[in-house]
């Protein structure tokens, strides 16, 4: 349980940082595509008998690279490319697992997460990935900001836009792999999109969105985990439900407040 709580905090950080850029770049489905395509790597790992995490990482990075190329070559049809990779990754993973010997009960844990099974070495890996993500985004913040805001202009001032887009998608891939452990690949996009989206409604500075987004993501993970522990429900699904409920309540409250304020001004 202690490991699980620490894992919740660690993925919260990567969620907030990468998720904020995903949301402002309107790339939520891109992240979803990478997450699902990673299943192909999990299948491959089962078949060949290496760590499913390594498999997922390799596939996530491979898919990120493919998507980066797709964005740069065929901008208009990006959604199609995402759809193809999304479904193909899942299909490939399923077939590879079918072909691999033995019975695979723990396949479900990659789909829906199993934060309670997080080991100490997993935590070190997550810490490392967090550090990597923070270092890259921190070091090149102004470049990522410029490219996210206006990629074409960024090109005119000589930024290596394509390279940065690729690096950004790799970071998404790494964050996705971390989150597969906790919420599972199917539920990844909820944790990527909800915390930054709530943060975006509270502030209009990207730095604060990243900060608040991380805090929200940590809070959702920890609260969801505690609830799932007491109700004996799946941790990943519970975390996502906590996030979704907060989101709904938040939107409704904001709407009601806006209406009240608007009526007062009118009256």
């Amino acid at each position, binding site marked *: 349980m202690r490991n699980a709580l620490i894992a919740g905090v660690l993925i919260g950080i990567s969620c907030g940082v990468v998720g904020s850029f995903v949301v402002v770049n309107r790339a939520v489905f891109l992240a979803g595509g990478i997450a699902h395509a990673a299943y192909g790597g999990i299948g491959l790992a089962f078949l060949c008998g290496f760590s499913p995490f390594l498999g997922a990482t390799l596939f996530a990075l491979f898919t990120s690279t493919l998507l980066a190329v797709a964005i740069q070559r065929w901008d208009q049809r990006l959604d199609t490319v995402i759809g193809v990779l999304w479904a193909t990754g899942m299909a490939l993973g399923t077939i590879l697992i079918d072909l691999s010997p033995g019975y695979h009960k723990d396949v479900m844990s990659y789909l829906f997460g199993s934060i309670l099974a997080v080991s100490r070495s997993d935590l070190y890996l997550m810490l490392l990935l967090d550090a990597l993500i923070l270092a890259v985004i921190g070091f090149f913040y102004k470049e990522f900001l410029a490219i996210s*805001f206006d*990629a074409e202009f960024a090109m005119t*001032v000589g930024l290596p836009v394509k390279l940065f887009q690729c690096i950004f998608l790799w970071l998404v891939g790494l964050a996705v792999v971390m989150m597969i452990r906790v919420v599972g690949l199917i539920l990844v996009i909820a944790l990527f999109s909800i915390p930054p989206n709530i943060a975006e409604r509270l502030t209009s*500075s990207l730095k604060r969105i990243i900060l608040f987004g991380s805090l929200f993501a940590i809070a959702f993970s920890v609260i969801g985990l505690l609830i799932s522990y007491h109700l004996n429900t799946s941790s990943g699904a519970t975390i996502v439900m906590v996030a979704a409920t907060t989101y709904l309540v938040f939107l409704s409250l904001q709407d009601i407040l806006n209406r009240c304020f608007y009526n007062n001004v009118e009256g």
Partner: protein
Amino acid sequence: MSRSITNKNAPAIEFKHVWFSYDSHVVLQDVSFSITDKDFLALIGPNGGGKTTLLKLCLGLLHPQKGTIRIYGKEPEKMRKILGYVPQNPNPNPNFPVSVIDVVLMGRLSHVRLGRKYTKEDYNAAIEALDRVGMKDFRDSPIEKLSGGQKQRVFLARALAADPKILLLDEPTTGIDAPSQSMLFELLRELNSHMTIVLVTHDTIAISRYIKTVACVNQRLFLHEEGKITKEMLDATYQCPVDLIAHGIPHRVFDEHNHVHEDEERDK
């Protein structure tokens, strides 16, 4: 025809037999022209005629399939520090959470190395550029809270922050009101005293008193160095099938009609 190009007396922008196509769709064919330092060039022509493509070629965003482009005698990619660009789309990423000053600082990226922080000098240049376009008081506002005209001025400031020698603007007056337009044109006239300006525009009448050179772009390019926009050029650009008039032998057609005076009166 081979003339050695030295940096000093090279033309600000020079196209030599430039061909460009997207896949099999030819956008520009055999475009050759040059403009001198501190020229004010208006590019007019129908939508899809290749005006924006031409700007992007100048910026090195696109590369011609045939022909050469030189900016003060050098390849566009090497001249990024002296090129300022104001793109057509005033909302590249709507509702993006960023402040005005941070947007203008992006104009300094050509002067700052990767991974380095903006310096005091960069901030000062950005503030000065904002002051220039009358938006200094908005420096901390979120960009999404601004009107279309205000955004356009911020994007102009972003281009000016780099202290460019050539300013390229793509339809900067789209969606902004008349007072902001004339303010913009006055500002461009001031800037023109020390920088070359290339402007893609539909507002041919409003702009005509500021420009020095006009080019009609519709696959081919015709340069009119008088800088006067005549009714025929407008007709050619917007009403008549452009192929009949602006292509081939434009000057003969211009000679046949004579509505120049009408147009000048209307201008006043």
